[in-house]
């Protein structure tokens, strides 16, 4: 536990330093990011060590509040998530060293919030009693809120910040009620007592606690109907912080859900798993379908976070279903897939957000419509972004493939379950996951293709410069991590068996070679596939050289239907690329299109045409606006209660007294 306290001390020092050095932004940035990086490195190392070890080091300080002590415990599951925080924090801090120049006018305040955000997020998975968990959970939310509204001059950031804080507080209220209900049952705050009291609760209470956990932690994780804050809040934050938020903060929601449902409640009725599977599938589909249309690169990545969280919750749902039918091995495999995808997503989403941040900084815009041709100006960033895109669309050599493969395997083994309804659910979920995979690949092609290839479509994109060296270092490390995680699935599943055992009491991941991922129904080894493909490519290259000689390529202008020269206006931009999806999935987007030609100057050609297109935010309009409208109408009606005349107020007094006396007479007051 001591190294972790050391890490927290380093982060606290970073926060202090950035406050003291408000005067000189450059120093404040370097100190805050540097110390944050050091702290995260220490944290990651300590947690990684604890992942393997069985002994759960603990720390209790009872001098904090009279009714609840500060309890921290290093459980395997908690260590895994804290290690994620450490790893992503390290990469983001290194990247922030040069990236955060863009925010130098508020370097001190950003550094302070950033160095408060990371320790709070790191300590949430280590909390061992309800009050500690809630305190750091709220502190994490508040610190990230201040980062989201860092550039509060832009009203969109303010609106995003408000929505984020209000939805997070709503979720925290549900989580608070959940912990209070458990506390009411066992009279103490520590999670060990919750775990003991959980199974004994009446089934109606267990269902209530499960629903509270799903909605509360689901909102924080960004599951479908509750995800509206995520695509607005994450892009508003600076690049290196939104990487932490998207990569790791949503995982704290997952950690909370797993802790409560698996840790405290234990196996429950199978409809729990079915509900989570349905919500997960909906999140995956909705997330990716909105991502494919999104022109803003950071909002695209935020929507894809909603998709990947959906996939993780689908795998966790399979774990729930299997454990409710008493199939421990399959449940362990499914949870292994969920945790594996959580780790993978943390890696490649941080990589993509950091790269997007660098692109936004050097090209001055986040809009794919105005990017393009960056591969020539920023070749290395483009390469790392490509690696991230390959991982995002789950293509073999990279890590996205293995965890999606494992999820498919657990869905397929769902057909072994007794009874027809679970099988039909697994069937539909498998279909949804496949469609999600396909559209995710399209999103990745759009992001990389229209963003980096062909000609730059704006002066900013044309004048882009390669990212700074610390940024490239962070991106390189993360890209290597994505590749490594993809090539040694067996070893990673072995490491994950500790946390999985913590959840389902049975770590049982089938032993196999380090580079092979096996499940009940089959196995795959990305390393061998990569080797085979490389061998075939080399053979083709050799054949080409023997037959056609050195084969140096000659450069010539692209064919542009005979027009004098290729202009950036001719190439396919993001909106054009996603046009087929807009048509095919029109029922969801209900796209609208407005073309207003101005008064025709000549007979045939109008002087100018105004074109505007957009899609309807279906969820916002159907699920969020009606209750808000009702609440406001009720409030305006209620406002007439204070109508200003003193006679009315005296009437209220009389009525209140009359009611009290009537209650007294009726004896109901006891």
């Amino acid at each position, binding site marked *: 536990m001591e190294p972790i306290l050391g890490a927290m001390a380093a982060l606290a020092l970073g926060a202090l330093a950035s406050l003291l050095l408000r005067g000189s932004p450059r120093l404040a940035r370097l100190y805050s990011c540097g110390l944050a990086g050091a702290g995260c490195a220490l944290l990651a190392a300590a947690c990684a060590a604890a992942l393997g070890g069985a002994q759960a080091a603990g720390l209790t300080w009872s*001098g*904090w*509040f*009279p*009714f609840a002590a500060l309890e921290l415990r290093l459980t395997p599951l908690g260590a895994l998530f804290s290690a994620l925080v450490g790893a992503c924090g390290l990469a983001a801090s290194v990247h922030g060293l040069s990236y955060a120049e863009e925010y130098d006018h508020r370097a001190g305040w950003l550094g302070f919030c950033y160095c408060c955000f990371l320790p709070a997020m790191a300590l949430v998975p280590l909390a061992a009693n309800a*009050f500690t968990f*809630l*305190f750091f959970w*709220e*502190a994490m939310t*508040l610190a990230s809120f201040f980062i989201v*509204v860092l550039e*509060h*001059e832009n*009203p969109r950031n*303010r609106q995003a*910040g*408000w929505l984020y*804080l*209000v939805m997070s*507080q*709503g979720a*925290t*209220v549900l989580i*608070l*009620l959940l912990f*209070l*209900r458990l*506390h*009411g049952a066992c*009279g103490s705050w520590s999670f060990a007592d919750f775990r003991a009291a959980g199974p004994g609760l009446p089934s109606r209470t267990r269902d209530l606690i499960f629903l509270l956990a799903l909605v509360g932690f689901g909102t924080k994780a960004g599951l479908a109907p509750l995800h509206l804050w995520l695509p607005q809040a994450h892009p508003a934050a600076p690049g290196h912080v939104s990487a932490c938020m998207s990569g790791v903060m949503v995982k704290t929601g997952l950690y909370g859900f797993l802790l409560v449902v698996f840790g405290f409640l234990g196996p429950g009725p199978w409809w729990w798993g079915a509900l989570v599977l349905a919500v997960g599938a909906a999140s995956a589909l909705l997330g990716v379908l909105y991502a494919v249309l999104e022109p803003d690169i950071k909002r695209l990545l935020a929507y894809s976070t909603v998709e990947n969280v959906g996939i993780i919750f689908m795998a966790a749902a399979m774990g729930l279903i299997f454990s409710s039918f008493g199939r421990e091995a399959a449940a362990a495999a499914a949870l292994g897939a969920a945790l594996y995808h959580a780790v993978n997503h943390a890696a490649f989403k941080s990589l993509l957000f950091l790269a997007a941040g660098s692109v936004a900084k050097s090209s001055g815009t986040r809009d794919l419509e105005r990017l393009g041709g960056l591969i020539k100006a920023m070749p290395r960033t483009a390469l790392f972004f490509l690696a991230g895109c390959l991982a995002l669309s789950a293509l073999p050599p990279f890590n996205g493939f293995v965890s999606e493969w494992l999820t498919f395997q657990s869905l397929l083994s769902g057909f072994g379950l007794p009874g027809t309804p679970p099988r039909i659910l697994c069937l539909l979920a498998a279909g949804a996951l496949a469609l999600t995979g396909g559209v995710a690949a399209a999103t990745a092609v759009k992001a990389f293709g229209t963003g980096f290839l062909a000609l730059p479509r704006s002066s900013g994109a044309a004048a882009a410069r390669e990212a700074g060296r610390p940024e490239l270092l962070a991106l390189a490390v993360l890209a290597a991590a994505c590749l490594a995680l993809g090539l040694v699935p067996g070893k990673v599943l072995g490491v994950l068996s500790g946390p999985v055992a913590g959840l389902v009491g049975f770590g049982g991941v089938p032993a196999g070679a380090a580079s092979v991922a096996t499940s009940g129904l089959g196995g795959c080894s990305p390393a061998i596939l990569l080797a085979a493909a490389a061998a075939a490519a080399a053979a083709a290259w050799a054949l080409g050289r023997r037959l056609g000689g050195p084969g140096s390529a000659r450069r010539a202008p692209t064919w542009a239907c005979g027009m004098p020269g290729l202009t950036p206006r001719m190439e396919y931009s993001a909106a054009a690329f996603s046009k087929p999806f807009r048509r095919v999935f029109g029922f969801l987007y209900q796209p609208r299109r407005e073309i207003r030609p101005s008064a025709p100057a000549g007979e045939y050609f109008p002087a100018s045409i105004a074109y505007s297109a957009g899609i309807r935010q279906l969820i916002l309009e159907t699920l969020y606006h009606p209750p808000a409208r009702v*609440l*406001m109408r*009720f*409030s*305006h*009606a*209620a*406002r007439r*209660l*204070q109508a200003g005349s*003193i006679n*009315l*107020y*005296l009437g*209220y*007094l009389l*009525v*209140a*007294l009359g009611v*009290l*006396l009537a209650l*007294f007479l009726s004896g109901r*007051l*006891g």
Partner: protein
Amino acid sequence: MALLSVCLAPLLTALACLLDRDDRAAERINVMGSAATFACAALLAAGVLRRGPLLAWGGFFRADALSAFMILIVAFLSLVSALYSVAYMRREAPAGALHWYYALYHAFTSTMLLAVLVDNLGALWIAIEATTLASTFLVGFHRSRHAVEAAWKYIVLCTVGIAFALLGTFLFYYASARGGAPTLSWIGLAGRAGELDPGLVRLGFIFVLFGYGTKAGLAPMHTWLPDAHSQAPTPVSALLSGVLLKCALYGVLRFHILAARSLGPDFSSRLLLGFGLLSLLVATPFILVQRDFKRLLAYHSVEHVGIVAVGLGFGGFWGVYGAMLHLLNHALAKALLFLGVGDIARSFGSRRLHRFSGVLTVLPVTGALFLVGALALAGLPPLGLFVSEFIIAAQGMRSGHAAACGLLVGLIAVILAGLLYHVMPVALGAPRRRPPERPSWLESAPLAVVAVLLLVLGLCIPGPLDRTLSAIAELVSGGPRG
């Protein structure tokens, strides 16, 4: 002797201000007077903490843990407001009326201190009636049409309300006749609580709760509160909502102890819980659609008084502990926000805060304090109110009021959304207009101290405060720390 000094100090200050026509002198006397009052209060509180309850004048004055706690809050906040009003009122008050203002201000403080210290319930009623008198003139100080209307409603509604409290006091007095010589001394009644006539106690508590509830701003008797608090000068409204409501609640609490000891905790707790939840429900719609900032803060007072009542309603050691802690936290947060809003309104020269944005960038110190106050009021963690609301909610769930606890926590979240929706455009965003003048350091210093206190209370509960709150909780709930 310390007991008397606490009451006399503000009275003497009031007299001195009254006699001295010169405004500057009045300001100096005011500062010295409030500092002296705070010193006496602190001394007394320390004394009570060390040596237990103190009696003076043959039992007429009594200072137990509850009184000491209240004295400290009243004295501290009146000191903060006094310091603030030196700079603020110099620009606001019409010439020559300043010494009247300070005289009334300190008279008002002394009545509140008297109400908290006196043991005789009749005298308690008189003191609270005296606070109404003093504060009416302060509310109507601006002589504008709105201020006069607010003062008129305030005096009429409160006088009528409190009359019923006196009837309730009569009933308690007559109820004590059954066991022997009737008495109005609280200690006497508390001692003989067992033999009081239960029927009379029930009816008496209903009238007392109705009476002092009107003064405390519990719904539906709260209608005077938004008008009075929004029209009064800022330092006065800070004192009104920060402390005066609490003194009325103190009155209710004294009778709650008597009723709990004679009838068992259920009767009075259920009433308090009912009124508390009703206050929360009534305050929520008003907060969501409020345009005027001071009225918004006034409705927040109704909400937080409701939360304290709910805390007392949940009862038990931790219910009372949380309620008292919330009382302190809210007093600090409300004072911080009212004074902050006063600063901003005066710097921009208009009350319509919705027309201004980017206060944080234009007035960094005041904007930051304003934001801290708003986040505290919303109940966000590093600041005190989160802790007290957590304790109350926990006790709610433990004592079986699961639905009430759910409603409490849900409404707090809705109110958070409403408050932030109003506060964020004002505090953040690009500034549209530069304010003609900046608040002086004298105004911002006391606010900074209050903000730091809120932060400290949010992170941990210092030893002496914890001991005081435990003593109060044991006094009220009778049970040990469980």
